[in-house]
């Protein structure tokens, strides 16, 4: 209960001070404290070169009820998937007779902070990889197991479990490795490219109109620090490439394939935009 009082007290204290809103849907001024213990960075100064002064987690744009779900791990519906991910972590699969735990042991130690640094440069592949592709690489190279198809098998729960070991850690990619800078640039170009019959880019909504309502949708900055994320409207855990594809579909455009060069470049760039926000996986959104 303590955490709920904290959130409520903060809301009351700040409601008076920040009551001058230009429009209905600005970010709420509250602090996300998970289970009354983990103080999350959900608003922070943006990194150099960022077009916005402040980066804000999507948590601030959700309703009071949705925000409360994420603040309590017993209430968070995505924690069931995290538990599934833990089971997968300990399950032997493939011809080599190994589980993730065979090599990596206790994930709370071996994976602590790891997910906060993805996507990372992968010298073997010659491209950046995210946690999903790192899992597939391990499965193929070390376990003798089939790689997961996009969003299938244990991909979402295992990714959520691994990223959850970084809960509260700041998002921090290393753009100096390999050709990460080139991929960042390609991602930036895509972020500002208008797609589809509706002729919208990521920036049109998430840079220019975050905080505003488009019909019933409250636009956030589109940061990805909480993925995989539980989306109430899909009643499911949703991967970052699934969300990218959904957004692009909504512009009435053809969707790039998951893990394609386009979407990996976009993931690199969008992840960078949310640098220094806490990893919230699994976040809860509308």
């Amino acid at each position, binding site marked *: 209960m303590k955490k709920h009082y904290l959130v409520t007290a903060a809301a009351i204290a700040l409601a008076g001070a920040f009551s001058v809103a230009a429009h209905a849907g600005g970010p709420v001024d509250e602090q996300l404290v998970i289970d009354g213990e983990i103080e999350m960075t959900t608003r922070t100064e943006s990194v150099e070169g960022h077009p916005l002064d402040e980066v804000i987690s999507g948590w601030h744009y959700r309703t009071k009820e949705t925000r409360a779900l994420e603040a309590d791990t017993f209430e968070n519906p995505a924690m069931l998937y995290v538990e599934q991910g833990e089971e997968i972590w300990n399950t032997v699969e493939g011809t080599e007779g190994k589980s993730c735990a065979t090599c990596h042991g206790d994930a709370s130690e071996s994976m602590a902070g790891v997910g906060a640094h993805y996507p990372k440069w992968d010298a073997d592949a010659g491209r950046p990889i995210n946690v999903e592709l790192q899992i597939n690489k391990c499965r193929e190279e070390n376990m003798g197991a089939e790689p997961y198809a996009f969003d299938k098998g244990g991909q979402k729960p295992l990714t959520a479990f691994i990223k959850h070991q970084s809960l509260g850690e700041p998002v921090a990619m290393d753009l100096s490795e390999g050709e990460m800078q080139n991929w960042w640039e390609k991602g930036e170009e895509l972020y500002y490219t208008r797609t589809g019959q509706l002729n*919208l880019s990521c920036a049109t909504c998430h840079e220019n109109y975050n905080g505003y309502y488009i019909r019933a949708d409250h636009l956030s900055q589109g940061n990805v620090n909480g993925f995989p994320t539980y989306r109430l409207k899909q009643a499911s855990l949703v991967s970052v490439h699934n969300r990218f594809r959904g957004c692009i579909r909504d512009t009435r455009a053809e969707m790039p394939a998951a893990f394609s060069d386009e979407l990996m470049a976009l993931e690199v760039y969008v992840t960078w935009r949310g640098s220094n926000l806490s990893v919230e996986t699994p976040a809860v959104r509308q």
Partner: protein
Amino acid sequence: MAFNTRTWLTAAAVVAATTAVAYSETAPGDVKIEDGVVSASLSGQPGDAAAGRKTFADRKLGNCLACHAVSDQSEQLFHGEVGPELDGVGDRWSPEELRAIVVNSKAIFSDETIMPGFYSLDVGIDVRKDLVGKTILTAQQVEDVVAYLATLKE
């Protein structure tokens, strides 16, 4: 025979309607926006404000409410706030100006505006295959929406 007469009349009406569309509708690429106006009806027909009111709200058609609030449609939930409220828009703009804005607002305001062009083929990349070469609204739907907007007076 009454039956035959009616059949012939219906057939004649179909021919007339087809002819009217074929000869008077302006294709998206041929619409001229000059001095911020499109002076003539895109369909060659007047708009129907009641139909326009529906197209305005329909999420599959105009979905104008996604961005614009309007008190005339207070029975609809969730009016957006990305664009200006449209109460009194019929006082602020002439029907010819409203038509130009609906056709291609980027030609009127700025290339940066979020508002899509509802009768323009100047669109984003990778358009969904079944929509290539198609506009968001038909010529008549634009006319209907313009007729509706013109009724929004204060």
